């Protein structure tokens, strides 16, 4: 449809403008501002003057040992929760695809964790994993596996594990819905052909199902990786980064640097390093999925 009259052209602009203004002001501008300030000396007392200091903020970030701790934490969180959610979600989707009755009911129940807000879910998990909490009671008195209460929230890897379990618990439902929709679109005659060729269930899954849902796997992979790096609220609520920032992730550490110590330039550089990492990962994921035959 081409824009014939002037009045129509004006109306098209009027339709585009509100969204573009809001998006431009509150999303696009902050992105460019973020990039710019990452090259400036910007700290709490120097709000007005932000002299250009080149890559100094980036050097600060990369030479900071805490940065590498939280970077590793974010990577581990992503490496565990992304495949965890996808595998379990796909498994549940395959199960659901094979049944007739109660399918909707199971779907709704599996989706409940997704719609539970992060604040609430995190507090529930904190309560369960607390040193005096239910889990420790079950482990010591109920099953007798441990003789003493485990301090789940007080060490680096156990604290992060709680956050990772929460991440998987909360994310499976989304994967289930997405994969179930993909499974339902796989043409039935492909399965029939495979059956004629004598393929068993597992072979059918590998040779028919997986290749057919490849674009969905890629979609989920990219979205979940972004989500993995976006982990914030659960860490804040469950461990608060304790002990001594050992359980902080990129975003909670960035937040701490910005709003507790006033080092905005450092925070901006860190954010940008993170955005770059994600961009690179997305490219690698797309390339890998396009090249390889699953």
């Amino acid at each position, binding site marked *: 449809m*081409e824009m014939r009259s002037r009045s129509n052209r004006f109306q098209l602009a009027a339709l585009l403008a509100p*969204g573009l203004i*809001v998006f431009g002001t509150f*999303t696009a*501008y902050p992105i460019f501002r973020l990039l710019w300030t990452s090259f400036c000396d910007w700290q709490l007392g120097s709000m007005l003057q932000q002299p250009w200091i080149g890559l100094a903020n980036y050097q600060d970030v990369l030479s900071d040992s805490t940065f590498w701790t939280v970077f590793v934490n974010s990577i581990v969180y992503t490496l565990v929760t992304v495949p965890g959610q996808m595998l379990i979600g796909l498994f549940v989707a395959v199960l659901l695809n094979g*049944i007739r009755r109660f399918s909707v009911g199971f779907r709704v129940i599996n989706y409940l964790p997704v719609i539970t807000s992060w604040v609430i879910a995190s507090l*529930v998990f904190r309560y369960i994993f607390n040193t005096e909490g239910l889990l420790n009671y079950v482990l010591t008195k109920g099953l007798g596996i441990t003789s003493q209460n485990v301090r789940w929230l007080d060490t680096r890897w156990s604290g992060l594990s709680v956050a990772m379990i929460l991440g998987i618990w909360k994310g499976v439902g989304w994967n289930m819905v997405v994969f179930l929709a993909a499974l339902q679109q796989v043409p039935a005659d492909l399965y029939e052909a495979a059956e004629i060729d004598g393929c068993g269930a597992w072979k059918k899954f590998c040779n028919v199902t997986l290749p057919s849902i490849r674009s969905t796997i890629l979609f989920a992979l990219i979205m979940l990786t972004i989500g993995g790096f976006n982990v914030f609220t659960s860490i804040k609520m469950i461990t608060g980064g304790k002990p001594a920032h050992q359980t902080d992730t990129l*975003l909670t550490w960035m937040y701490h640097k910005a709003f507790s110590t006033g080092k905005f330039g450092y925070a901006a550089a860190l954010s940008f390093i993170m955005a770059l990492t994600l961009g690179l990962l997305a490219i690698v994921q797309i390339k890998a999925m396009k090249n390889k035959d699953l």
Partner: protein
Amino acid sequence: MRSKRNQRANLLRYLLLLAGAVLCTLPMIYMISTSLRPNGALYEFPPRFFPRLSAVTLENYQYILTQSKFYINFLNSVLVSVSSVALAAGVSSAMAFVIGKFNFPGKRLLFGFIILTMIIPGTTMIVPQFELATKLGLVNKLWGLIPFYVAWVIPFSTFMIKGFMEGIPNEITEATYIDGASVMTVFLRIALPLAAPAIASVSIFNFLTAWEEYPWANTVINDTSLRTLPIAIAGFFGQHQFTQWGYVFAMSVLTLIPVIIVFITCQKFFVQGLTAGSVKG
């Protein structure tokens, strides 16, 4: 022989699904059960999964529901979420209509950039956004949250609705133009009603996003009277040296009820919205 094997496989499916359903709901049931017991003991010893029937009490709910703060927080959340959702639906579908149905210079670049911003996790931009909010006087204002929430959801919403707009047959719109209708008329009378299912499903997601948003609201809102529900719950948690878990979870349950109502009633749209983006890739 074969049907027997099928039956067994089916039984296994149901058992596994049932186990999954239990795992999904256990934490929620524990939350509800904790909200129903007396608030006296910080950590009940021995901890019980279900409260003793004789000890079940609504005192935590009574406490929350007699506090005017709760109603203010609730109203704040409703106001912010509903306005954000309505505004986002309006501006996103207008953009999606123009991008999906017309050609103009720079269109691909513009749309590509909008999509690209989805790669950057929302909280990453919190520092420059905070600076912007300070400059525009939006800090510690309830309605100051709205433009940020709208901007946040625009890329995803536009992307989803655009797919739907493209699917509207050109014959329908062409015929209307020939009848002398303007672009605006076609958008309002034809495109909007036809894209309604997509807009509805996107809006449900946006509602959830706004309703549960924590990092940003926690950063810019200081006054207790301006808090949204997630901030109020988190505030409860840090308020005393010892957290009053009964209050925390009673308030959590009350916060989840609207979400679950929205979810159950709009279940169909939910799945549609989720799958539109993923299957097409």
